């Protein structure tokens, strides 16, 4: 008699083993991630957050759509929880310290490295990812092959380090061994909204298919539009009421006294 157990019994057993999942369900159990700080995004990511180890690719066309703001809450919590470096390898511009501090990132953890050659930057990334003394390594590589990403992936697993590569969205069709790939698109938020937003599509994730594109709102007021008051300036103000004029005068007097003191 062939040994075939009934599917209804064996399936749950199999699913309990790690490494097996239903493609239709996003399994959030097997690896707890670092929360992104955005609930909408957390729901789409395995482990409900950025992978704690492994390479994450953020693909976008144009800088300024919020690719770094998306990462900032996680960087902030990592820098405060773990006494480890956050290495910025050849950022395209200067990371601005007051803004980083405002975002909650501990500046004592930030280390910026500017290698001059491509080989040097790959070497820096691999060393840093594998060193166990970094909690995150951010890099903006120009050209990077899947074999190189594979090496970085292995190093980052060994070093328990979040590795983030900012790449151009043209590379979306290339295969990549990265743990997680997100396609980011700029969103022109409606003028009525205060918060700025970004379009996200998960291209690759552990334990799930790629997602539909969705919109994510940042916790800021960058889209708040300063009303244009220039047309509301009153050209000839009417004379003040006598009582108000007295208050106005005495205010000047107090101001003078304070200055003399």
């Amino acid at each position, binding site marked *: 008699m062939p040994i075939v157990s009934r599917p209804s019994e064996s399936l749950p057993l199999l699913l309990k083993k790690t490494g097996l999942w239903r493609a239709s369900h996003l399994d959030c159990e097997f690896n707890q991630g670092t929360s992104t700080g955005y609930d909408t995004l957390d729901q789409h990511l395995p482990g409900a957050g950025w992978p704690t180890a492994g390479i994450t690719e953020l693909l976008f066309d144009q800088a300024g759509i919020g690719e770094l703001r998306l990462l900032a809450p996680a960087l902030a919590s990592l820098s405060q929880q773990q006494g480890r470096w956050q290495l910025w390898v050849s950022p395209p511009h200067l990371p601005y310290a007051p*803004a980083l501090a405002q*975002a909650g990132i501990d*500046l*004592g953890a930030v280390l910026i490295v500017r290698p001059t050659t491509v080989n040097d930057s790959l070497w820096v990334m691999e060393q840093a990812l594998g060193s*166990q003394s970094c909690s995150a390594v951010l890099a903006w590589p120009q050209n990077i092959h899947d074999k190189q990403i594979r090496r970085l992936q292995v190093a980052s697993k060994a070093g*328990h380090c979040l590795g983030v590569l900012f790449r151009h969205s043209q590379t979306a069709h290339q295969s990549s061994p990265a743990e997680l790939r997100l396609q980011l698109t700029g969103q*022109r938020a409606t003028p009525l909204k205060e918060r700025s937003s970004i379009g996200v599509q998960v291209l690759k994730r552990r334990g799930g298919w790629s997602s539909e594109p969705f919109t994510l709102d940042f916790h800021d007021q*960058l889209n708040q539009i300063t009303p244009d008051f220039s047309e509301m300036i009153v050209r000839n103000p009417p004379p003040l009421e006598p009582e108000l004029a007295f208050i106005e005068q005495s205010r000047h007097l107090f101001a003078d006294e304070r200055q003399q003191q």
Partner: protein
Amino acid sequence: MNASNNNSTLWLCLHFPHLPLQVFTRGLNPTDAIKPMVILERRRVIALNQAAFDTGIRRNNNMDTAYSISHEVISFDKDNDKELMTLTNLAQWAYQFSPAVTIRAPDVLLIDIGGSLKLFNGLKALMARIECGINDLGYTAISAINATPMAALLSARYNAAPNSDHQVADNTGEVLPSIEMAPVTCLQADQAIINALQQMGIYTLRDLFKLPMSSINRRFGIYFTDYLQRLIGTQPDPQKTIDQVPHFFSDITFMADVTNTNALIFPIKRLLDELNAFLTARQLHINQLSWKLSHRHHPTKYISIYLASPEHNIKALLQLTQLKLEQVKDVQEIDTLSLTVNTFFPADTVSGDLFQSAGYQPSIKGPSKRRQRQASANTLLNLLSTRLGPDACFGLSIADDHRPEKSWLRLKPNQIGDETQYETAENLAIQLAQDNHRPLFLLTPPRALQLINDAPYLNGKLELLQGPERIDFGWWDRPTSGEIITRDYYVAAHTERGALYWVFHYSNHGKWYLHGIFS
């Protein structure tokens, strides 16, 4: 140190009979060491290795004779300075065993090991350690132990004679090798005195000690009796011990010119081991070391290695040296390799993590956080700055200034994590960043923007969302011009792609600049 009356003193004499030869040969691979080699002084052979001896060359041979016996022979002129320097280095090395080390040029070290016996588990263990260490450094020494410095020296000379074997004393110090049987020729005295003694029929020290001291005094003078009294310990014999000058220099000369940097790894390891012993003995850390690769016909090449903070980790230093060596491109021949360290720091007495091997600790909180980070991450920093150069890495801090360009500071790697650099957490720049929007990326310097229809343009039309925020640009910093420079900053959005920028224009003219990106 006057310790000759103290029963616990025990003097070790290390005699380096082959020093003139070994200052040249110690860096060699075993394959090179089998070539015949002689040391010449005034064109006469004064020292030779076994290979040279096997070819038939003897001491005192003329240089021409030596060359006619073997045309392969390699010769060096005796280098007294180098010998003294080597002996000084050896004394510094021996400092790890005892604080009382005396140099007696040209080839003897005297060490008071009486106080070190307990620490090193007895005399046998200590001697094994010293002899092993000297062998590792590439030297051979004849050792002898006795109760006074002069007696130890005499025993060493006596031991140097081929048919004697020195007794090892127990650490009670009772059974010391007797010097009574030693011949008078071993005495450190004028040749005339020794000749006179021998003519008197006195051949051994036992014969000499039978004579009354006063008559020896009358016959040979006060200096000789003083020497004898120091020899047997009836007179104190204070020794001038080496100064504790933290300076490290050591070098290795190669027999054949080295052209391949890989061949340098073995001698580099040897020099680093020496440095390791030096640092361990003194509880010192270093933050820089410099290698010198030189050749008699080529300009000298220096390789300096700087560490982020003082430490003592020979493995890491070896790794860093190898990294640096890989970068040295135009390697010519090298005939001497030397290592110099001049700056030392007292070792930090922070205890290491007992469970370091268990990997990183996910959450380190409290005041020790920065310190812990510093300790764990220095290795990475050292690695990066060695390969990429000291300027490639930097950290960030905040300056107390409202102007965007001046409100951040560039920190050197060794300043990162230094608490004093982060004192101004409640400062103006942070306040401003809280009340106003500041971009995560700043362009240095600001980039001029195109204008289309008097509106700023950057790969598309920009729409001004917020602003203006007026920032005064410091008339106080340029008092002469008197010009008032103020900028009006706006948050601008790319109308199609939604990217957000930080742009400004000067209040007195209409040019627009891009200063930051809300990445």
